């Protein structure tokens, strides 16, 4: 039984957005949407998190910061890019310092489009992210030798992960 889907903690980071998606994320925590009933907690500390919920795009200043936060999150982890800015840079895409969406910095697992993304979409995205998390958890649990054997048989467990990444786009 994978407990990670029952207790997904998230850390929220705003790259370079207008803060609209951030407010929608906060709305999810309010009694109306109440994501805590799924065990979701906004910890704000990457070291405690399983889900990296990013809004806003990547620019030259926050590129190393996003990478650093991503590095600090222990495995298994998923990245959920919320809002059009996180997906592709959105309305700020052509600005002089913008590099694009979050996938320019870190590997993204789930894309949640919208400007601003609605709380229902965000929750939906998180739930999809949980499925990805569960697969990653299973992959982590496989001992190293078995992984090598599987790789040799050209049956990478990561394939399922890539599939859901494709589906999310």
């Amino acid at each position: 039984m994978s407990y990670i889907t029952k207790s997904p903690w998230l850390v929220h980071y705003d790259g370079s957005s207008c803060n609209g998606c951030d407010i929608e994320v906060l709305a999810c925590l309010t009694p109306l949407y109440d994501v805590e009933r799924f065990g979701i907690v906004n910890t704000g500390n990457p070291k405690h998190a399983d889900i990296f919920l990013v809004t806003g795009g990547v620019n030259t200043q926050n590129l190393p910061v996003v990478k650093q936060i991503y590095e600090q999150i222990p495995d298994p982890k998923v990245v959920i890019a919320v809002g059009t800015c996180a997906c592709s840079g959105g309305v700020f895409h052509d600005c002089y310092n913008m590099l694009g969406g979050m996938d320019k910095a870190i590997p993204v697992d789930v894309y949640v489009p919208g400007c601003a993304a609605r709380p229902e979409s965000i929750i939906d995205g998180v739930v999809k992210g949980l499925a990805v998390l569960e697969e990653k958890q299973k992959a982590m649990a496989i001992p190293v030798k078995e992984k090598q054997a599987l790789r040799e048989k050209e049956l990478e467990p990561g394939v399922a992960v890539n599939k859901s990444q494709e589906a999310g786009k």
Partner: protein
Amino acid sequence: MCDMAVNIGNIVLGIAYLVLAPLIGGLLAGIDRKISARMQRRVGPPIMQPFYDVFKLWDKQPVAVNKAQRFYIRGFLLFAVLSGFFFFAHGDLLLVIFTLTIASVCFVIAAYASNSPYSQVGAERELAQTMAYEPMMLLVALGFYLHCGTFDAKEIVQSSAMNFIYMPGIFIGLCYILLIKFRKSPFDLSMSHEVHQELIQGALTEISGPTLAMIELAHWYENVLLLGFVYLFFTWSPVWSPVVGLAMCAFTYFSDIVVDNCCSRVKWEHMLSSAWVVTLVAGFANVAFLMYMR
């Protein structure tokens, strides 16, 4: 022979504590979150949520900022468990409090060890918290000694009258500092549980995964031990008194949840000064009374 039976009985109780306390502690934490959610007109997580949290944390990749943290947290867990074991098996109150002190020192050192600003402030606040509640904790043990003539928890629960009647001031003091020890508002300065944030995570900032699970577990053990202190006030010789004791434990815990949801976090100066004033007034008055009675 009777001694042997008593000793074996003690050990059994101690082992029961070792096994049951995490379960009880986790359920208490779950009930806490559920009630808080309902007070905020939300649905809230399932009661078993803390267990899911701990299991999840246990399976995470171990991430750390240095090798020393995990060692100190292990010490924290070990001594928290040990102090609870002493309470239920052996029963000397001062021994329990001193062991608990070692545990809190280990925790503070773990926070200091990471040399990060948020951790450091969390550690300082945790120390200020400890300084705030320590006098009252000692007065609780000494109050029992003055009233019952012993530090032994076993004998205290067998006293001839309900201890609370003679020690109301000390009980009020204990309730006040329980808010600090349970890490509830208004005194949850050093590290915040679950949904709250304070300086990222305060003392817990640089701690992750399995180590964090150990801290959560240690807190469950500690909470059961603290409720054990409350139990001492309301249990005496009649066979049916444990019901009263347990009911009061539940009531105290519930009131703490209510206070948690009503109050906002205070500054450390306020916490320290108010805790000491309560200790001085309620604790001192009660202790003076007990000494006079002797």
